[in-house]
Structures are given as C-alpha cells and as structure tokens.
C-alpha cells in the first residue's frame, strides 16, 4: 500500500491510500486439486489466455479480500522447476518476471515425499509460499498423521490443511492470504545446506555475481548460483545477458568439473539427492503412521479395472455407455433447438415484411446456419459432462494405461487416447487436448490424425444415407463407419510416425491418481471450457462459411440470380454452387454421385453436418422427403463410398483453425491435403471393390 499526498480536495483527510494489485500464483503437482482450489478462490470466474509465446493455457481469476483486489494466476501442473519442460519454465518465469506477492503451493498430503520437492524448489527461489496440505482425508484414510504445525515451523512458511473437494480449510487459506498481504505473516527463507564442497562453490559464485551483475536484478543470487552449478541452460543465457563478463559462467563450469570428480557424480544429481534427503528428514519429524492400511479403495477398484483380461472390456463398455447416454439424453433438446431455428425463427422471418433479399440472408443463411451448428450443442455437452466425470474420478488415466500397448504398436502413446476420445464429440477440443502429450512428435501425430475421428457432426450424414438405403442394416453400416474411423486413425498415425515424424518416443509415463468423488463445479467448468471452444470457434468460422455459401448460391457466372434459388433447384444449377458442383462431379465421376451430392460436399467443408441440409436444399426437397430422393440418386455402394468420403475428407474449417493454432499453418495445410487424398482413395477403393464383387 502506498500513501500519496492529496492535492487538497475537500472530502478526504489529506492522504488517500492507493492499493496496488496483489498477485498470487497457484502452483502444485498435477492431480493435487489445484484447479478446485483455484476455482474456490476465484469463484470459478477466470480469463483464459495463453502464456506469452507458447500455447500453454494461462488462467487468471480475481479475488477480493477486504478492499484489496487480488489477481490469482493458475500455474501449470509441475513437479519441479527445471528448464527442461515448458510448463516448469513458465512457472519459473512467472515468479521472476511478474514478482508475485505470494505463491500458494498445493501439496497432496497423501504423497508428501514427491510433492515437497516442488515446495523446496519454490522456497529456494526465495518467494513467499503458503503451503496448502490438500487431500487430508486421503492421507487419513491411508493412516497418515501429519503434524502440519511442525512442518510450518521447519519450512518457515504457513501450512494450511484442506480437503478442497469438501471446501474444508478454504476459509483458513483465505485468512492466511489476508494476513500475508498485510505483512502479518512471517516468512523465513529456506537455505538448504548442500555440504561444504558445494557450499564453497555456491558462495564463490555468489560473490562473483555480486560484482559482475550490471543492474539491480530480479533474481535471488543464491538461486542463480545453484542453477549455474546445475548447468541450467536458460539461466546460463540470463547470466550472460546480466553480467559484464563471463567470469561467473567460467567459474561455474570450473566448479562443475571439480565437484564431479569430488562427489563421483554430476552436481545436478547430487543436488537432487540432497533435496530428497532433506525431505526425508522433514518427513521423519512430521509424518507418523497411525495404522497400516493394507488395502485401499483404489487398490480394490484397480484390481478389477486394470485387470489384464477384463480391464479393456470394462473400458469399452464404459465408453460405449458414455456415447449412448450423450446421444440419447440430448435428443429432445436437439429436436427443440432444431425446431426453434428451423421452423419457428425461420417462419417468423419469412412471414415478416422485410425486403426479400434480407429475408433470405437472415433465414437461409444466418438462422439455418446457426441452427445446424447449435443442434449439436446438447450432444456435445452431454458427451463432455460424462467424460469430465470419468476424468475427475481418475478413470481416464487408467484408460490411457490400458490402451498404451495397442497405441504403441501404431506409434502413439496411451496419452493420445484422451484427445481422440474427446474428438468423438467434436474434433476441435480434441485437437486442443493434445497439449497434454509431452513428446513433441507424439503430440503432432495425434493432432494430425485427430480429425479422422468421427465427430458427432458426421453422424447425421450416416443416419440419413444408411437409413434410406440400408434399412434394417442401418445400425451395422453406421457402426462400420466408426470402425473405419478408428482403423484409419491408427493406420495414418503409424504411417506418419514411420515416415514423417521419425525418432523414438520418450515413452509413456502417467500417474494413476487415487479414485475420488467427482465434484460438480469442476465437471461443469471442464465441460464449459471444451464446449466453449466448439461454440466460439465453430460459431465464428462456420457463420462466415455459411454466408459465403449463401452468396455463391444467389449469384452465378451470369450475375445476380436472387434468393429464388432456394425454392427452385433448377435455378440453383446456374449459380456458382452449380458450377462448382458440376466440376466436382467430374472429379467424382468414378463414384457416380451426381453434381448435387458433390456440391453438398463443398458445404461440408464448412461443417460436416451441413451436408445433409444442403443436399435437401440442392435436391429441392425438405429433409423429410430427402430419403426418397436419396434412394433414387444413390445405390447402396455409392452411398457407402459417400459416407466414407464424408468421414475422411478435409476436417471442417474450425478444426483446421484449431490445428493451425496448435501446430501452425503448415500442418493445417498438410492435414487438409492428406485427408482429401485419403478420402478420395478410400471412396474410390470402396467403389471399385464393390463393382468387382458385383455390387452397385
């Protein structure tokens, strides 16, 4: 708080207080309940952006304590503060660059040994840390008794036990934050004694840094010295920039060599060992075991869910139920949205007395477009809710484990499964979810094949075509599309891994968290974050596409035709859409789809669900009579090839935009091109094979 002199207005007492914005970072290992505590503190309202220069998500929320405005920043889930991973660098740079007032370090009380490593690393940076001992209930269930007051005394920082999922201890945490920002809490810097040899090295590097650094630095010098000894590349660059000469760097290199021969190992490894030694000593003091619990809930459940024989069948049934639930529970809502846009709003606009061109733009372009996109909202929401529940329980990590062996055969890892499963709802959040894959090649391959997963928007195309032509075999035919989708996703991944993204993957490693009860707020927030991507991206990109197509429909080589095209398909043949459709039907001649169905594919580039609606439009019938027309226009063989083409060809524009956002423009173009070729080859093969065995 700063006091400034008042310029002499009447109302105040002479000085006013200007409170600066308080900044808090929330750090912790993955799976410690970090996002639950972040949501508790910020009331679930957060701005989502990216950390500068990288595609890692940055979440910022606000918290009011008395009259102070507190900005809460959610740091990525990390295990330590090295420079090896982007996430760790982000957390480190946040501490150095943004100079937070407090770091809240969330620690899993049932797994102190590992979690305290990050705590120690944070304390070494000389920041004010409040430790939150979360999951106290889990620790208790395991028979642990933790003396948190003693832990606080040893580490010199406040320690707050919580059970975030039941909101226990959150009030105490806010109380501690309040005391800390009013400077009423005591923070003692933690200095780890690394033993005489290393301490001598640290101290002499510090004294060189002291005289060499040009300006006042944001870094803690002891921390800088330790990082130089560890050979941290990022810090070496920083020191190069900060110092007048390379004296400190040379000294550090010198000591690294000397210490290696003295200690018999790399300094880096030695420092890690010392930190664990310290943690072990601390745990001896604060942790006692009240009772030995032989078998926990997680042990029992995992015995079944990770079982070598029944594990995979259980996973498949669980995922099947997720699909069934999402599609069936959302049906009434989808119908309602369909009616609202397709009938109710449409009729209102057409019965109004607006100019006819505007009427057509609003009804045929805007409203129809919005309707076709929003119809998928319910199924996507229900799908993501059930997935978020499975994730929060801890089951999705098990699924990743179960499929790792199979995925590995195709050059992917177990981690790829979660983005791919999300893709069945909508490819856009699926592509974005590849961020959690650590290995760069694995991540790129997964993002590039993710659009081959049959998203919910493709389903209506299958349903209409299969329903019209395959009758009783409709279910089997639709299912076969999903099987094609999975097979081709894996095959393309294998090919990409073999020929494009060569090199050995760093491998699969994943923590299997204890099973926990899902928390409504966390499930809803996760669902919203994924749905939002579908809504906003799809909303903007698809709308622009729809408007473009509307324009191409009411104009043609001969100039303006007018909105009558939408009621008279003969006129539509003269529009640009007609011209493009005829050109495409030439390319698709072997499959014999005709110009109207070919033109409908063009619409599908905007969003695949539009294919059905635009076929109805192009044939000049309502969607109800569409199946009669389809029976005349398609053979079962050409319909099947058409369905396969819709499954595989260019992902919708919004998905391409997502790939561009994650991997760059180059990869978005690669994805678009390879999928076009793949779709064409598969559709052509189906046709030729069918004709060969005498179908069609």
């Amino acid at each position, binding site marked *: 708080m700063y006091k400034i002199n008042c310029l002499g207005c009447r109302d105040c007492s002479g000085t006013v207080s200007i409170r600066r914005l308080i900044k808090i970072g929330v750090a912790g290992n993955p799976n410690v309940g970090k996002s639950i505590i972040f949501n508790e503190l910020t009331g679930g309202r957060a701005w989502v952006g990216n950390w500068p220069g990288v595609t890692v998500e940055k979440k910022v929320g606000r918290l009011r304590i008395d009259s102070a405005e507190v900005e809460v920043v959610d740091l990525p889930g990390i295990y330590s503060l090295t420079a090896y991973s982007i996430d760790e660098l982000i957390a480190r740079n946040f501490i150095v660059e943004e100079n937070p007032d407090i770091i809240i370090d969330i620690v899993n009380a049932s*797994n102190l*040994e590992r979690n305290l490593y990050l705590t120690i690393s944070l304390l070494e940076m000389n920041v004010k840390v409040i430790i939150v001992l979360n999951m106290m209930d889990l620790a208790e269930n395991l028979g642990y008794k933790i003396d948190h007051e003693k832990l606080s005394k040893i580490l010199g920082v406040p320690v707050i036990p919580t059970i975030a999922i039941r909101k226990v201890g959150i009030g105490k945490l806010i109380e501690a934050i309040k005391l800390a920002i009013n400077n009423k809490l005591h923070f003692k810097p933690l200095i780890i004694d690394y033993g005489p040899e290393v301490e001598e090295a640290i101290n002499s590097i510090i004294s060189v840094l002291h005289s060499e650094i040009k300006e006042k630095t944001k870094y803690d010098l002891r921390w800088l010295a330790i990082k130089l000894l560890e050979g941290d590349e990022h810090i070496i660059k920083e020191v190069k920039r900060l110092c007048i000469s390379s004296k400190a760097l040379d000294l550090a290199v010198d000591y690294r060599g000397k210490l290696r021969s003295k200690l018999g190992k790399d300094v880096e490894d030695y420092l890690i060992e010392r930190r664990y030694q310290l943690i072990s000593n601390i745990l001896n003091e604060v942790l006692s075991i009240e009772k030995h619990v032989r078998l926990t809930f*997680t042990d029992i459940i995992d015995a079944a869910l990770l079982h070598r024989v029944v594990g995979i069948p259980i996973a498949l049934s669980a995922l099947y139920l997720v699909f069934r639930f999402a599609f069936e529970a959302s049906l009434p809502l989808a119908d309602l949205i369909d009616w609202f846009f397709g009938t109710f709003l449409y009729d209102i606009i057409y019965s109004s007395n607006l100019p006819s061109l505007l009427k057509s733009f609003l009804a045929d372009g805007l409203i129809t477009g919005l309707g076709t996109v929003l119809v998928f909202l319910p199924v996507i929401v229900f799908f993501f809710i059930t997935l978020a529940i499975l994730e929060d329980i801890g089951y999705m990590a098990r699924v990743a*484990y179960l499929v790792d062996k199979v995925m*590995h055969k195709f050059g992917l890892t177990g981690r790829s499964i979660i983005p791919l499963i999300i893709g069945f709802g909508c490819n856009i959040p699926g592509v974005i979810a590849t961020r959690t894959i650590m290995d760069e090649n694995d991540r790129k391959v997964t993002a590039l094949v993710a659009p081959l997963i049959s998203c919910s928007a493709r389903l209506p195309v299958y349903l209409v075509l299969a329903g019209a032509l395959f009758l009783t075999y409709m279910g089997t035919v639709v299912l076969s599309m999903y099987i094609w989708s999975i097979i081709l996703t894996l095959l393309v991944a294998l090919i990409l891994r073999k020929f494009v993204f060569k090199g050995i993957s*760093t491998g*699969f490693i994943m*923590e*299997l*968290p204890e099973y926990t009860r899902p928390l409504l707020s966390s499930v809803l927030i996760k669902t919203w974050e994924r749905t939002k991507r579908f809504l906003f991206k799809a909303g903007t990109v698809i709308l622009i596409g729809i408007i473009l197509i509307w324009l191409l429909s009411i104009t043609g080589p001969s100039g303006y035709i007018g909105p009558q095209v939408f009621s008279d398909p003969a006129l539509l043949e003269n529009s640009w859409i007609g011209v493009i459709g005829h050109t495409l039907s030439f390319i698709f001649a072997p499959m014999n789809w005709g110009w109207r169905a070919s033109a409908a594919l063009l619409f599908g580039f905007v969003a695949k669900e539009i294919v059905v609606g635009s076929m109805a439009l192009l044939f000049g019938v309502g969607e109800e009579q569409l199946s009669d027309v389809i029976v005349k226009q398609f053979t079962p063989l050409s319909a099947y090839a058409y369905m396969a083409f819709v499954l595989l060809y260019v992902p919708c524009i919004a998905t391409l935009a997502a790939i561009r956002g994650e991997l760059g423009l180059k990869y978005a173009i690669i994805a678009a091109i390879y999928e076009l070729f793949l779709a064409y080859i598969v559709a052509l093969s189906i046709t030729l094979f069918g004709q060969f065995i005498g179908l069609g």
Partner: protein
Amino acid sequence: MIPLPLVSSGSVVRVLHIIGGKGVYRKLHELGISVGSRLRVINSWGAGPVVIETLNANNDLRTSRVAIGYGLAMKIYVEVIS
C-alpha cells in the same frame, strides 16, 4: 539386476540403474522413481506397460501409482527385494 517389466506382479524392488538421457531420468524422477527408490510392482503383463507404486523411503508406505510404458520400463534396472 533385471529390467522392471520382467519382475512379476506383487514384488517389491529397488531401482539400481536407469539407462537413457537426461529427459528419461528427469521424467521418472518427477514421479518419484530414481536410483535407490523402492517400488512395488502392481501390474506387469508381458510386453505391456507396467503399473508400480512408489514407496516412501522412511517406511514402506506407498506414495503414488504410476503407469510406465513398456519401452521406458525396460530402461529401469532393478533388484527384487521381496
């Protein structure tokens, strides 16, 4: 000294050696697996991933469950304690 995937389920092992570069070392270390740490093997079937529990250094209580892909697990050499 044998690679981790060759140990049968239920055994407790001690890590003796980890092959591979800094990346491998660091990733395992993050999840509590480094030279000297003790692990209980929960699931290990053939050429598939291995599920282990890392055990506290002071007492034999488990700290966390980790699934490790087969390739990565083959880089971890252990001795069986019990």
